[in-house]
């Protein structure tokens, strides 16, 4: 969407945005002033697909100055320090924690906040030698609380695991005590490497404060190599990241399709050409014209390198697309419980994959010259998102019982090498039975699930689509009061449109 003076005016004079949110909003509006048909060689057709909502660029703008997802290799900081920030390699835990906080403030991001802050337990663990838990714990807790209050965006993501460490246990303890939405957190779980006791502690924490989520680290390593889980649950190369993300709004596309065959064999190929063209042009601009890779200290000092970047083509609204097409086929069924629905869904995804497989592109050596597919969540406050349920998720209220639900969802993970995930709430009784939840997670991973998260009903801190919000903060935002965290606004949109707070509870 192009911006205009009116949008700048409204942002500047808003009564419900904080200072930082206004700065970020104005910066975003500024890079949407120029028409991408001139700036990025978008065709009229490309632009039409953005305008009519079939392709979504997440309002990322056109005058691109930086890749969207930056996934620094923080081990470089430990080894070499950082010249640009005049930091020498940390000698103890205090220095490490300070150095990391200093680094985070300089990591570029569309949200202005880093989407990846490191595999925290493995970063901390070597610095714990000779220190007791009593000494270490308050430091870790303060560090995590600092992040929540300064990097106020639930797409700020930390990883832990797969091995159990003392640092890992202390991080979990702090996360449970703090009950903060930030940072988002993933446990890279590998049944063979991760200690069972630590996995159970992660489940316990997840049930209480909705994090960490569980990632099937072995599966993602197979397809992405050395990676981190960042932002919502994007699996991206460490030391690089992703140039950008464009998404097919499948629910919207289905509305414009005559029938299933028309969507799969006419519309998707045409949209595929455009989505690939737009992504190619955007990356050309970032790599060739933005001077990011020539000037940014992260690149110069080895935290990032250009050849470790990929880019993402995403889908959203598979459920809505399928429901629409089922209706056109005269079937009174819905995605999640319809056999024909799954057939249609798999045919749509096969086509999306085929289009992606057929497109070789530049600056993409890290992922074999191809974009990675991703199932996108992060609902936005636009009317179009009403018709587009996150990722390949079953609509809230239409979920089958949990085992059937996981079986259904598991069929789709294989497409999304750059990440997807689902969330399953449990009732209060599971707090006393993390072993039962771990059984379900293990089973889901065996069935093909790559990422799973959960929470217990009635907690204030809950996962909306891929990130965490406090219900109490959403209420504030609904009353047009300024709130600390940007993502509360997305949560607000998501609650209104997808009633995700009412997701089926497993009894």
């Amino acid at each position, binding site marked *: 969407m192009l911006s205009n003076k009116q949008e700048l005016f409204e942002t500047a004079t808003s009564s419900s945005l904080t200072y930082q949110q206004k700065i970020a909003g104005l910066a975003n509006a500024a890079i949407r002033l120029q028409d991408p048909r001139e700036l990025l060689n978008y065709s009229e057709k490309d632009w039409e697909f953005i305008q009519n909502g079939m392709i979504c660029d997440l309002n990322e703008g056109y005058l691109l100055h930086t890749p969207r997802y930056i996934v620094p290799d923080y081990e470089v900081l430990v080894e070499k320090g950082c010249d640009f920030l005049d930091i020498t390699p940390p000698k103890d835990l205090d220095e490490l924690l300070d150095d990391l906080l200093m680094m985070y403030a300089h990591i570029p991001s569309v949200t202005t906040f880093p989407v990846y802050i490191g595999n925290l337990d493995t970063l901390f663990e070597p610095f714990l030698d000779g220190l007791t838990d009593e000494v270490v714990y308050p430091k870790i807790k303060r560090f995590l609380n600092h992040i929540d209050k300064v990097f106020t965006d639930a797409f700020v993501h930390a990883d832990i695991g797969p091995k159990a460490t003392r640092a890992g246990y202390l991080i979990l303890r702090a996360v449970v005590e703090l009950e903060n939405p930030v940072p988002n957190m993933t446990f890279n779980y590998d049944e063979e490497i991760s200690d069972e006791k630590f996995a159970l502690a992660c489940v316990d924490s997840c049930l209480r404060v909705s994090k960490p989520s569980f990632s099937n680290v072995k599966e993602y390593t197979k397809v992405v190599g050395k990676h981190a889980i960042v932002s919502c649950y994007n699996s991206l190369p460490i030391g690089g990241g992703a140039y950008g993300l464009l998404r097919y709004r499948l629910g919207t596309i289905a509305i414009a399709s005559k029938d299933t065959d028309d969507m799969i064999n006419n519309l998707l190929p045409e949209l595929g050409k455009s989505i690939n063209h737009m992504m190619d042009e955007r990356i050309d601009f970032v790599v060739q014209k933005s001077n990011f890779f020539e000037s940014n200290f992260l690149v110069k000092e080895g935290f990032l390198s250009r050849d470790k970047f990929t880019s993402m083509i995403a889908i959203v609204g598979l459920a809505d697309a399928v429901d629409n097409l089922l209706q056109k086929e005269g079937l009174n069924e819905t995605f999640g419980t319809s056999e024909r629905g799954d057939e249609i869904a798999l045919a749509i995804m096969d086509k999306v994959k085929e289009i992606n497989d057929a497109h070789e592109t530049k600056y993409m050596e890290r992922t074999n010259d191809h974009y990675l597919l991703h199932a996108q969540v992060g609902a936005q406050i636009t009317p179009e998102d009403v018709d587009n349920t996150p990722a390949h998720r079953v609509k809230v209220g239409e979920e089958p019982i949990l*085992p059937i639900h996981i079986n259904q969802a598991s069929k789709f993970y294989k497409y999304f090498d750059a990440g997807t995930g689902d969330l399953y709430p449990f009732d209060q009784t599971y707090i006393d039975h993390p*072993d039962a939840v771990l*059984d379900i997670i293990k089973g889901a991973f065996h069935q093909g699930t790559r990422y799973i998260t959960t929470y217990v009903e009635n907690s204030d801190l809950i996962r909306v689509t891929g990130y965490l919000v406090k219900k109490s903060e959403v209420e504030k935002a609904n009353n047009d009061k300024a709130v600390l965290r940007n993502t509360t606004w997305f949560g607000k949109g998501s609650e209104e449109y997808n009633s995700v707070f009412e997701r089926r509870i497993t009894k």
Partner: protein
Amino acid sequence: MCSKEGLQSKLPLHKVLPFANVDGIGNRTSIFVQGCDIRCLYCHNPETQDVKFKEREVSIEDLIKEIEPYTPYVRGITVSGGEPTLYHKQLEVLFDELHKQNLTCYVDSNGYFDRERIASLIEVTDKFLFDVKTLDSSGDLIGVKKTGNLENLKYLLKLGKVEEVRHVALTSFVDSENVVRQISEILKDYPEVLFRIIKVHTRGCMHEDLIKDKVPSNRFMGNLGKIASDIGVKLVRVQL
């Protein structure tokens, strides 16, 4: 019973609960059979008591198919009821088949079975959840005169086939303190077996009117837990 014939044998079924987190360690699928040989005053599933009433009868083969979508997410199944040992022949076939899928098979029993008669079921059962209702033979609590449950418990413990022992405590109809003492004297030698002492709940139970003023106080319950611990039971859980 030959296997093919066994797979066709019918089991009176009350219901299947895909996921249960209270019927043994981990996540399990619970299968409730229809029919019971006792009539507990506080029974919470009175509709499962009648042996003749058959809401549903399924063959073992169909039951295995029915639970197939759930099995990737569970360690095994727990057969509850009703009284599962009434159907020892059918369950033997079921357990044999499920063991082939690496699922563990538990039985939740009141313990009033003839162990000679159900010997082959015991053999294929991984663990029992053993509910000691009472130790007197008056029939005040369970509606019929029965004995032998404590001997059966000892027998199963020796075989290493008990995961937990339960007792539902009341202030009347059963001498709960005596039950807890006797069980504890046995369990003190089995540190891996959980002893769960549960306060009776009246909501939805069969004879609410008879039970409602026989609910133990929390202090009473705490005392039962202390008795068990003092005697030397390692794993005691009191449920209020």
